[in-house]
């Protein structure tokens, strides 16, 4: 996987990371699919200490962000001192190694 998608409603322009059959804003049913990337603002975060055996890290940081176009997503945070409201840049990276398979997802730096 080299990109992660977002879906834009062709009727109202609402953009979501999660795929739905109907637009959550206008119930439209036609979407354009495009990669989710660019700058985003941190809405909230947590440093998770109780982790699965998949992780060698002592803790990981997860956060919810809002992209400039209003689309929101959750992903891994790679910043030392996260603060609500800070600007981040989204990249695709390895977020987990599960049963020897690399899982790719959104990483925010």
């Amino acid at each position, binding site marked *: 996987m080299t990109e992660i998608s977002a879906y834009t409603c062709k009727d109202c322009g609402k953009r*979501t*990371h*999660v795929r739905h059959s109907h637009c*959550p804003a206008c119930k439209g049913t036609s979407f354009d699919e495009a990669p989710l990337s660019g700058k985003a603002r941190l*809405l*909230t*975060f*947590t*440093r*998770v*200490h*109780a*982790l*699965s*055996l*998949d*992780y060698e890290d002592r*803790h*990981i940081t*997860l*956060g*919810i962000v809002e992209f400039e176009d209003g689309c*929101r*997503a*959750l*992903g*891994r945070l790679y910043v030392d001192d996260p603060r*609500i409201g800070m600007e981040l840049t989204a990249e695709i990276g390895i*977020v*987990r190694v599960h049963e020897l398979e690399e*899982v790719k*997802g*959104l990483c925010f730096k």
Partner: protein
Amino acid sequence: MLRDVYIAGCGMTGFGRAAGDLLDILEEAALAATEDAGLFSEIESVFVANMGAGILNHMSGLGSALVDRLCLYPTPAELVENGPASGGSAAKIGAYAVGSGAVDVALVVGGEKMRAVTGWEATDFVATLSHPQAEYIYGVTLPALAGMFARLYMEKYGITPEHLARVALKNHENGTKNPYAHIQQAVSLDGILNRPEAVVNNPWVAEPLRMFDCCPVSDGGAALVLCSKEVAEKTGKPLVKISGIGQATDTHAVHEREDPIELKAVQLAAKKAFEEAGIKPSDVDVAELHDAFTILEIAESEQVGFFERGTGHIALEKGETSLGGKLPINPSGGLKARGHPVGATGVAQLVEIAWQLRGDAGERQVKNARTGFTCNFGGFGNNVLCFVLEREN
């Protein structure tokens, strides 16, 4: 509903680590409730609530399995799965079965055996209810979702770690009065927050939440016998009516909510339950809220309408939600101390409120309780059931 529905019998197993298997748990809870009601062969339908037997216990078809254990065949039976709100859903469906007139007596049994696996495996199992592509792949757990929720809620309303710890203190204290509670041990602010050794006693789970902000992983079962008024009157027990049921859903992925700290499904489910019962939140004498995390008790106490937004922690601080306070919340110890066998919790909340309204709650009895409320929170607030119970006679 076409006719009123009553709780004729209540039963619970001791929560914690069960010696027997899941079917033993369901049997024990079911027999306690049917014995309490004095109704057994009269049962016309069985609804079993469970979230994880397929993953945790390698079992399925629990409705049929329980009917066989009880030799209740050919009584119809089914399994109801709705995450941590499975118990509330089974109770709702049972109530609708009686309320529609389809049956006169229904047995609702919730049970879970979570300690068959390691703590991490149990946490991971619960995390499977998160969005598979947008949440779960990142290592999201329910504590992680609660941590992100808590950080925003605390910042917005000035809630401190001490307020969260006070939820744990209150509910652990209540748990010492509940012989069915998983944890029957009081804790102190010094022990879990203030003293240097508190960081060892109470380590981080998902910041800003620590271990004592999270419910334990529990085995346990709870059961209700639901019936028509005509049947309830014959039992000779105080009449406890299910006078309002509300259910609502919200987005699967938490990040899709317009405001991640608005628990819209909680708000809507509570509103519907109160409207159906024809009462206001201020009419409630005792409540069981879904405190899987301490922050949730505070947030739910506001969002179901008991307290103004941003004042739940102040009511807690003043002791209004303690036993003896204006509105005792979680007299059972809540999920925090009674425990949280996920499929059983919604039923256990109703059992506690029914006991409170009947005057059968022992040391933790809320005086003159006539109206009670429950909130059973599924997912991270994406499927919520609220109930209003009232004592009639």
